[in-house]
């Protein structure tokens, strides 16, 4: 990432226009149409959101899972810059790009979800600031972090030298950016800790409306850990996806080490979560009815990847790593879905299942993210180069 980085990056090989890109573009256009319908006819027309489930698929998927998946950059930054685990730095740029896209689209879908989006500028007006509101903290923090993520991508863009026919002179900008890079990096580590934990704190005020198996004062800790786990999962999946799409090398050993860290983290998570339940004497409820089943499935999804990664052979096998990554994401995603949707009950029985358009918007946003991701890795040096080369020898 910086001048002295061991790894260098290069734009993705092959043409931009391929089957995957075309498919993503088609899905994205359908989604854009659905978004227009929402803007013209309102939330009641386009979604099944209701007074009992004011937050639905868009919040659970786009914001909770979307930013969770975007936390790969955050998790890696902790490893690379805070713990000085240089071997992971080759994964940085793709992870940061996924993060930037994930966070930007989370922000975009929040705008779509806002009933009175025209007033959103109130979040920036000190006269309207409400420091007691967890959501206020989350909103500003997520916006700040999205900005940081894009700034972290600037070096990748500057390496390109010519953008849209304009030759840029990056010297001054580059110098300042590198000089202040540590500030950006520090913010890039701090902000996710703040808002990912606060995404959990958001639900504390909902009190009895979140099922006791989930409602906990430890919400911030659970959400922070699940964010890091999803981030690692996303890094692994993304590495294998782009590698197999462009034929770049697998980073099996590096990712194996990453999976090991994730497994330790989820072990810690499980320990705290179950201890929390014991402490509050909720074991009887844990196995009761529909919420009990969700609880068991959710935690089984955490146990499974730990089992996979525990074995050294499996840990260093691309296939098993991939399965473990999917399970880490599935577990954390289910946890987040449970807290905000499945185990959220407005006391009075309200049914909620996303509407056709609601699902279409979500699929469309994924399509848009893929389109932008493919375009970004095509135009900018984001993916690690095929062979590890020293930056200096390239120049």
């Amino acid at each position, binding site marked *: 990432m*910086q*001048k*002295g980085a061991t790894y260098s990056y290069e734009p993705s090989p092959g043409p931009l226009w391929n089957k995957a890109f075309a498919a993503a573009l088609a899905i994205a256009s359908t989604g854009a149409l659905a978004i227009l319908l929402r*803007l013209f*006819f*309102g*939330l*009641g027309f386009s979604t099944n959101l209701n*007074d*009992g489930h*004011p*937050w639905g698929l868009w919040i659970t998927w786009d914001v909770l899972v979307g930013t969770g998946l975007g936390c790969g950059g955050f998790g890696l930054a902790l490893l690379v*810059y*805070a*713990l*000085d685990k*240089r071997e992971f730095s080759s994964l940085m740029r793709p992870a940061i790009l996924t993060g930037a896209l994930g966070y930007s689209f989370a922000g975009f879908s*929040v705008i779509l979800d*806002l*009933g*009175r*989006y025209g*007033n*959103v500028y109130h*979040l920036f007006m000190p006269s*309207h600031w*409400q*420091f*007691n*509101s*967890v*959501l*206020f*903290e989350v*909103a500003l923090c997520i916006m700040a972090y999205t900005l940081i993520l894009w700034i972290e991508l600037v070096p990748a863009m500057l390496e390109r030298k010519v953008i849209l026919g304009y030759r840029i002179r990056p010297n001054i900008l580059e110098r300042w950016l590198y000089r202040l*890079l*540590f500030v950006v*990096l*520090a*913010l890039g*580590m*701090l902000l996710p*800790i703040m808002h990912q*934990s606060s995404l959990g*704190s*958001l639900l*504390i*005020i*909902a*009190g*009895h*409306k979140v099922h006791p198996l989930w409602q906990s*004062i*430890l919400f*911030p*800790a659970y959400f*922070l850990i699940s964010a890091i786990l999803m981030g690692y999962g996303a890094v692994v999946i993304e590495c294998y996806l782009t590698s197999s799409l462009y034929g770049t090398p697998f980073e099996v050993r590096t990712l194996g080490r990453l999976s090991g860290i994730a497994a330790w983290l989820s072990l810690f998570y499980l320990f705290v979560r179950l201890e929390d339940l014991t402490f509050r004497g909720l074991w009887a409820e844990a196995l009761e009815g529909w919420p009990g089943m969700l609880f068991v499935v959710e935690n089984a999804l955490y146990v499974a990847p730990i089992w996979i990664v525990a074995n050294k052979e499996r840990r260093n096998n691309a296939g098993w790593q991939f399965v473990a990554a999917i399970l880490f994401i599935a577990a954390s995603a289910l946890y987040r879905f449970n807290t905000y949707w499945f185990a*959220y009950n407005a*006391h*009075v029985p309200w049914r909620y299942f996303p509407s056709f358009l609601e699902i279409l918007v979500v699929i469309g946003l994924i399509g848009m993210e893929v389109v932008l991701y493919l375009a970004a890795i095509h135009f900018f040096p984001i993916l690690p180069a095929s062979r590890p080369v020293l930056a200096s020898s390239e120049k």
Partner: protein
Amino acid sequence: MRMNRRGFLQTLAIGGGALSAPSFANARQDKALSPGALGLLYDATKCVGCQACVIACKEVNGMPPEFSDPDHLWDAPLGLSASTRNVIALYKEGGRHSFVRQSCMHCVDPACVSACPVKALTKEPKTGVVHYDAGTCIGCRYCMVACPFNVPKFEWGSAYGKIVKCQLCDHLLAKGEKPGCSSACPTGAIQFGGVQKLLQEAHARLKAAPGAYYPKVYGEKEGGGTQVIFLSALPFEKLGLPDLPDVSSATLSETIMHTTYKGFGMPIFLFALFAFIARRNLQKGKEE
């Protein structure tokens, strides 16, 4: 570097501890009832289900009818909604039945006010009326998530909807009139007045006819207290009123928020730490 890492892990552990288990030294107390607080006393044993309050509420607030039958014959809301701020529901079990009025409880320490990120929901300091300002609202609907009684409702039918909830007819209060529902009530089941007086009245009724009532004034303590209080012959949970702890959920949420972010100390500390370490490691990378 070893030292660094260990130091980092230690601070992370401390930070994580503070994050997840706030010391209640910073705990804020539930807000107290304002002496001039206004509210309603709903006595379910006096309610005959005439729904005059429903009509009156719609009239004084200019609310549209809401249909739930295929022929659209009646203004028949199934509960509170963007077009219904006050509704009478029926609980029936065996031979017993009771009506119950649903509307904003005007909590003493409202979760919605604590949740709103832009101060669109405010609690009037004197009367304690929880007021909503559509011009400020961004439509995030966090108030709906936060409210323990599921009172704030969103105008789903509109392309640019707003939140709708009872505001104790504050436009009538300003003119010295009573809220529409209590003016319309023919049996005195909805009584308007100062909350302190209403609480006295409620307890007097409990004392006068102990057999007729479930022995509790709902809203005296529930969720940190509400300015709309209830009397009933049946247990309140059966009437859809949740069994809440005596502490407002806003108190818990804000305690955690303010413990974590007190004076922005922890974020600044973490930032300084990260910045220091990142800078060192960047320098080292350059040297290599």
